[in-house]
């Protein structure tokens, strides 16, 4: 139903198509012209690419700084390793943010492109229009992002490492890498637009004709829980590994345990989101709770892609946070400065991943409102209060987000149960800070949701005839 309403600017295109060879660039331009409220459809992907690029450059700048420092001073060799670990944690949310941007720039066009197909444009023409457009959006976004990154360095430079603010200059990646990042973002966007296109090219009619919500098998959960249990038991007996294989064996066992739990989280995440949503569906008393639960159940995997990016960071934050709390209290063994820097690193990684998820949620939500414009307009006409639509949107994201955060925290907590227990007793401030950072993170994501609110207002203020 939502997929079939043609955009108002389309009807005059057939004439052009009939008149010999249409100029692809001209059609692309006509389709992307911001007409009134659909300006958001052009601005949004550009903003999404800009934020992706800016965050990517900032992370890269920070990592390069640590690598430089580590190479320069053997005493600081641990920094690049830790930074590499942080980057690994940020890759997932960053890729998912970039993916949203790419999907957004292609998907927003689905309806119009489907219309183009219906009126006889060849698949090749449709493909060229989409890829051209996505590339243009990505290029504009990446350039804006580079400027954003530069503008943000003074503020980011205030972060303290090695006992002093790192300074804006130390985050500069250099002209070459800057160009590479911009080119990379554009390339990935073009490629994913070309890939995402197939569904439209294959079926010109309705992209959203799915009839039934997918279900996931409970066996997944059983296997996952069993694996986690084995890992937890293994962790409790970590010293056994130490007795058999020495320190190296112990570290290896810990790394394997980490990797396994992270993999399990990825496997379990969508399923857990679905289970919680199903429980919420049963308990729903209000229209917004009902709509939110059903929306989540429609595609737990899509929601995992949006919010799952924080899972790993939350998990690691609990594990590392507990360890660091104890190290800070014990003192001596590790340098106080290193412990402090590791704290900073944990907070930054955590906040960054929440920030990326917040951006991706904002972008995805805005896209969703535009995609389902006629449904929102219809609900408004029936007299559905704005507050109900907003509440459904917020619940639909915050529910899965809390599911992810809480289960990652529990998994991390189980893994280091004795450590965490001691940390709570001897270093409550650190644990409180950790909780505070979680709260700030969830707040950031809600802010991302709120940021997409004007899009709904615009849609409802100027409803096209549906």
């Amino acid at each position: 139903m939502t997929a079939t309403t043609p955009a108002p600017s389309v009807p005059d295109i057939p004439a052009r198509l009939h008149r010999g060879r249409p100029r692809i660039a001209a059609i692309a331009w006509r389709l992307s012209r911001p007409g009134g409220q659909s300006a958001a459809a052009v601005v949004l992907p550009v903003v999404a690419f800009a934020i992706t690029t800016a965050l990517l450059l900032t992370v890269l700048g920070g990592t390069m700084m640590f690598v430089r420092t580590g190479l320069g001073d053997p005493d600081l060799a641990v920094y690049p390793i830790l930074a590499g670990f942080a980057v690994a944690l940020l890759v997932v949310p960053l890729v998912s943010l970039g993916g949203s941007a790419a999907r957004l720039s292609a998907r927003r066009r689905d309806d119009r492109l489907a219309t183009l197909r219906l009126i006889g444009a060849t698949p090749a023409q449709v493909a060229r229009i989409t890829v051209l457009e996505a590339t243009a959006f990505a290029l504009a976004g990446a350039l804006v992002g580079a400027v954003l990154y530069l503008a943000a360095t003074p503020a980011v430079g205030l972060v303290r490492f090695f006992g002093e603010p790192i300074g804006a200059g130390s985050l500069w990646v250099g002209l070459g890498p800057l160009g590479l990042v911009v080119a990379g973002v554009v390339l990935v966007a073009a490629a994913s637009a070309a890939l995402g296109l197939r569904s439209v090219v294959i079926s010109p009619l309705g992209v959203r004709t799915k009839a039934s919500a997918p279900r996931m098998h409970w066996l997944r959960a059983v296997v996952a829980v069993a694996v986690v249990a084995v890992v937890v038991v293994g962790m409790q007996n970590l010293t056994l590994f130490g007795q058999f294989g020495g320190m190296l064996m112990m570290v290896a066992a810990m790394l394997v345990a980490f990797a396994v739990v992270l993999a399990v989280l990825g496997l379990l995440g969508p399923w857990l989101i679905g289970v919680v949503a199903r429980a919420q569906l049963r308990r729903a008393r209000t229209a917004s709770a009902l709509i939110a639960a059903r929306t989540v159940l429609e595609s737990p995997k899509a929601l995992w892609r949006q919010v799952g990016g924080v899972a790993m960071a939350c998990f690691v934050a609990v594990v590392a946070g507990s360890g660091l709390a104890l190290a800070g209290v014990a003192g001596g063994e590790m340098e106080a400065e290193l412990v402090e820097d590791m704290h900073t690193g944990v907070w930054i990684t955590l906040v960054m991943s929440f920030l990326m998820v917040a951006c991706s949620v904002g972008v995805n939500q805005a896209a969703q409102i535009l995609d389902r414009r006629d449904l929102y307009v219809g609900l408004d006409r029936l007299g559905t209060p704005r507050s109900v639509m907003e509440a459904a949107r917020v619940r639909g994201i915050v529910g899965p987000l809390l599911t992810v955060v809480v289960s990652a925290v529990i998994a991390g907590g189980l893994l280091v149960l004795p450590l965490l227990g001691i940390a709570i007793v001897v270093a409550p401030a650190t644990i409180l800070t950790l909780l505070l950072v979680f709260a700030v993170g969830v707040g950031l994501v809600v802010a991302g949701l709120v940021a997409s609110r004007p899009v709904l207002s615009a849609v409802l203020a100027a409803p096209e005839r549906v």
Partner: protein
Amino acid sequence: MTPSILTAHRLLKSYDRAPAPALDEVSIQVAAGESVAIMGPSGSGKTTLLHALAGIVPVDAGQVTFHGPTGAVEVSSLSESRRSALRRDHFGFVFQQGLLIPELTAVENVSLPLLLAGYRRQDAESRAASWLDALGLAGMGGRRIGELSGGQAQRVAIARAQVTGASIVFADEPTGALDSATSVEVLDALLGSTVGQGRTLVVVTHDEDVAARCARIVRLRDGRIRDDSAPRGAAATGGPRFAGAGWSADEDGSL
């Protein structure tokens, strides 16, 4: 004479970039329990009139008055949120595309207006289910909208429009996207559940067969009423007579 339930007086409405007004001094009275078809060429202002009558779009001049169960309300002077509440509480809507929420089941879609009105979910769903039964969708309440045919989905939309006991149902080309056999079914359901129950129906349509079954046809052209009369031939019957049991959904007494 039957009392009016809705009166519109000299409505004027122009859109920003349009050369001519979409509504040009339109006045109309709708009697309680009446069925009115609004016809006219594309762009003649049918949808705009329907939206103005239902308080969806504000008019530039003129008044719309709804003589509801709690007295007369001047729709055109209400704030946006009051109009929204009025639509929710007293009006029902059926659009060309049902605009049902695809993630929800049929029963959940129909129960939505009741939830918004503060009903308990269980009550809302059982009432919604009896409306679906009455409209020939027994046993399909658990299906999602994508699992229903166009005609079935449209009947779900009709159930949703009726479930709160709306005194007027507004329909904009409710059969516009359906084949003719399905159109007849949907129209039967629409007429039977509105005028068949003493409620009022205002329906915009292109289809002379649809209009012919209404008590009155209002013809628009260029934003003005050109003709307002009963359809040629027989007086409208208000649709088929339904077996009594089918329509008892809202007289159930259980709510």
